[in-house]
């Protein structure tokens, strides 16, 4: 699948490095990832590059987007480690959008798991070619040479040569076959598994980092866009006479509405163009626009909730069927059932969507905070009617993404406006735009039922969900959950229960639906792990002991044998099985580290547990809550046990799980988006609050399971178990069971 070639230096970053440099290109075909990847270009001839200058400088291309995970440091560190390069001589360059790199869509918690091997191969290839060059120069066998921190060494003759001086010779060496590559043993890793300095830390602590909203181009103007308050509404009339009186306003531009499906297309509207952001926003406030709201004006969240609940109260299409749930329910008198509900959520990254575009002479140059520069190329090309190779997308730092910035509608707006006004245009979404026109996380209803044995353990489990599918963004008729969505907490239910059925019912979309950090795991995990805790309490059993009983003996779930279409995050089950032994280990670790055995819930203080596998990682969470009589919930402590396979950057992994606990707390405590007559009711952080320092868990302790298994995801899998663990802790504290999120909605 992969081949490595020495490439012409001109094709490496457009001639960024100097003559005489040794440049290595790694061609690869990463396995197709499910979900979001289905919406991408089918072009799969990627390559990723590593360069070595004659002065010894190593240039490593960061092809994934940096939005706070540290990926801009972690992937280059893998290359440098296998190359045996001196980190102090590594320079990291951000890649432009280009399909030659493989997927650059930085979501799905995929960067390390999809590119770990590729980066190691790139580094190992360079190292072997440098050894070959030194061996040829000295007339000694390659096998007698070794490397140490940027040098090739021939111990027998005590000769050493620096990588820089070997660059030219190395470029002439034959490229080793993949099967001939020799990798370091984990014990010899100097960067993998270590806490490398975050590459842009100083910039981020001094306001010098350049985000999409900070990008500028000479002659640039600013735009703020008034859009239809209802998805798909049409502009009836507008009056910009007051707008044009605002100092700094240059003109207004009407952007046509999209033709369905909305995909990543610009929504359309009236753009106010000004010489600064404030004037554009102020001019927009003075704009009068009337809209024909169209059919989505029927969308009312209260009515919709009843419909979704009705859907899950009836049998629906089975996505997983093991044993015979109906027969078990019929013969077993003892049972428990419950309904759960999670509303729409907005991503609300601190940097709202923002992009700069210059369209000139049939070409577009873009600077954008984007998780997916290739989708920018495709979307802008389609909007302008030009070839994607004429769209040059520069990726800035991202002020948060969480999935929002994989959808480049805001970049299409900037490009269309630049074309219309003949100057570079920066589009800055207001916070109100961001929250009202998001690609919302699906609203979802769930129904669960279990029949129980004498010890209160399920003999049969039925899980049923209904939610508007992400696929509706690309195919307006789609109404059922896609296999990848059902594979996030529904069809992959890992507990040892003899009879299992998972069902999913249809749901219409009336707003743009999109993936948000951990996707449909959020509601599926909330329902499942709340329900399991309910069963433990019904049985008067300790929740951890009960959970371990349900996890059962270590086994690998054979989805194929049971006939379940389970996509496993696009990875083969033989390499990444659903391994209940690993599930058990994180439950035990979380219980141990949190001191579960010595904790006593009650009188307003409670402890809750949940365990969930997602993005191929195993995560157990113990949450401590204080639930006051006034309904206020605080979270003094969270313990997270994580088995994510091989860890490249321990501190950044811990940071992801610390952050996920806060993100999950926002979902549990306050996250709620609703619509009335098709218009989103929330608009800023007063009506759509997210956790502040006073509401976030006070301290989250992250415990990593040492592992040499292949690396799995870390950005998202910390989120799903948090909300159920919080609600389980509340139930332990005061007996109150929460089945509708959020716990404390804004009145």
């Amino acid at each position, binding site marked *: 699948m992969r081949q490595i070639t020495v490439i012409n230096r001109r094709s490496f970053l457009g001639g960024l490095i100097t003559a005489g440099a040794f440049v290595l290109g790694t061609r690869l075909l990463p396995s197709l990832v499910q979900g979001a990847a289905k919406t991408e270009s089918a072009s799969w001839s990627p390559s990723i590059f590593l360069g070595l200058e004659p002065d010894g400088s190593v240039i490593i291309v960061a092809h994934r987007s940096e939005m706070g995970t540290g990926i801009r440091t972690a992937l280059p560190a893998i290359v440098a480690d296998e190359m045996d390069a001196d980190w102090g001589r590594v320079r990291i360059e951000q890649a432009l959008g280009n399909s030659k790199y493989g997927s650059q869509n930085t979501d799905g918690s995929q960067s390390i798991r999809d590119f770990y091997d590729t980066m190691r191969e790139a580094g190992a290839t360079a190292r072997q070619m440098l050894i070959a060059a030194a061996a040829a120069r000295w007339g000694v066998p390659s096998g007698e040479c070794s490397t140490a921190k940027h040098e090739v060494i021939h111990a027998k003759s005590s000769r050493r040569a620096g990588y820089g001086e070997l660059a030219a010779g190395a470029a002439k060496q034959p490229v080793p076959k993949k099967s001939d590559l020799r990798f370091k043993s984990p014990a010899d890793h100097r960067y993998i598994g270590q806490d490398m300095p975050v590459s842009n830390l100083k910039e981020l602590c001094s306001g010098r980092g350049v985000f999409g909203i900070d990008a500028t181009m000479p002659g640039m103007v600013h735009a703020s866009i008034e859009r239809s308050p209802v998805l798909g509404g049409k502009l009836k009339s507008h009056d910009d006479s007051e707008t044009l009186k605002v100092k700094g306003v240059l003109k207004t531009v009407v952007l046509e509405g999209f033709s369905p499906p909305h995909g990543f297309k610009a929504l359309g509207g009236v753009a106010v163009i000004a010489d600064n952001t404030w004037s554009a926003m102020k001019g927009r406030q003075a704009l009068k626009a009337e809209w024909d709201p169209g059919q989505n004006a029927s969308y009312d969240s209260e009515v919709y909730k009843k419909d979704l609940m009705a859907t899950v109260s009836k049998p629906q299409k089975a996505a997983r069927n093991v044993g015979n749930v109906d027969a078990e329910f019929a013969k077993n008198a003892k049972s428990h059932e419950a309904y759960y509900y999670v509303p729409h959520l907005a991503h609300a990254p601190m940097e709202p969507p923002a992009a700069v575009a210059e369209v000139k002479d049939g070409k577009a140059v873009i600077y954008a905070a984007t998780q997916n520069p290739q989708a920018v190329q495709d979307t802008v090309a389609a909007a302008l009617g030009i070839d994607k190779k004429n769209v040059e997308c520069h990726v800035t730092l991202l002020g948060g993404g969480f999935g929002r910035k994989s959808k480049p509608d805001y970049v299409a707006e900037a490009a269309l406006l630049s074309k219309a006004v003949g100057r570079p245009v920066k589009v800055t979404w207001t916070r109100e735009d961001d929250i009202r026109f998001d690609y919302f996380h699906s609203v979802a209803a769930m129904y669960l039922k279990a029949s129980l044995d004498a010890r209160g353990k399920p003999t049969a489990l039925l899980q049923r969900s209904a939610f508007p599918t992400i696929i509706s963004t690309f195919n307006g008729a789609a109404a059922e959950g896609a296999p990848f969505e059902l594979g996030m907490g529904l069809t992959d239910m890992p507990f040892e229960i003899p009879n299992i059925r998972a069902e999913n019912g249809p749901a219409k979309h009336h707003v743009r639906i999109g993936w948000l950090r951990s996707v449909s795991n959020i509601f599926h995990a909330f329902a499942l792990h709340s329900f399991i805790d309910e069963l433990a309490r019904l049985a008067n059993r300790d929740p951890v002991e009960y959970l371990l009983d349900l996890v059962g003996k270590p086994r690998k779930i054979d989805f194929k044998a049971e006939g379940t279409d389970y996509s496993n995050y696009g990875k083969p089950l033989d390499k990444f099985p659903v391994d209940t032994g690993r599930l058990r280990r994180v439950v035990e670790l979380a219980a141990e580290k949190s001191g579960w055995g010595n904790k006593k819930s009650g009188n307003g203080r409670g402890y809750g547990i949940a365990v969930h596998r997602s993005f191929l990682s195993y995560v157990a969470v113990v949450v401590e809550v204080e639930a006051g009589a006034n309904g206020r919930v605080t979270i003094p402590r969270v313990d997270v046990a994580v088995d994510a396979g091989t860890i490249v950057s321990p501190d950044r992994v811990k940071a992801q799980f610390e952050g996920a606990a806060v993100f999950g707390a926002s979902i549990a405590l306050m996250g709620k988006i609703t619509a009335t007559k098709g218009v989103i009711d929330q608009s800023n952080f007063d009506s759509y609050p997210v956790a502040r*320092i006073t509401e976030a868990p*006070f301290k989250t302790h992250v415990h990593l399971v040492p592992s040499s298994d292949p690396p799995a995801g870390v950005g998202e899998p910390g989120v799903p178990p948090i909300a159920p663990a919080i609600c389980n802790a509340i139930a332990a504290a005061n007996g109150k069971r929460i089945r509708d999120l959020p716990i404390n909605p804004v009145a």
Partner: protein
Amino acid sequence: MITLKVNGVTRRFDGDPEMPLLWYLRDLLELTGTKYGCGRGLCGSCTIHVNGVQVQSCVTAIGSADGKSVATIEALGANVDHALQRAWMKNNVPQCGYCQSGQLMTAAALLKEKPKPTDQDIDTAMAGVICRCGTYQRIRQAIKDAAEVAL
């Protein structure tokens, strides 16, 4: 004509006195370290100091800063060496980093007022600055570390 000092440099402005300092700093002076997050004083990403007092620049009209002295993140430490910046780097506080200017400027105002803040002091002072990545516990630790060093 409005006259103000920004990071020690005297500036004159004869535009709309209602323009929030945020956009004056970002669009006109190209001091983009101060961030837009909400436009309504709800999130704290835009926090700066005016005459040494912490304000949210998105809801502070430039007209109100006439004759005053404005300090932004760019002037916090000449070589990114303010005690808070050093503590921030030691604790690897930032994830995406977008809100961190507001966090640091708010923390700097806190330490000026309370050189040895308690957890409660920190939480009260920092509650106005949202971090969507969830770096709060490291922010708390970094402020405590900086307070120790500063003494």
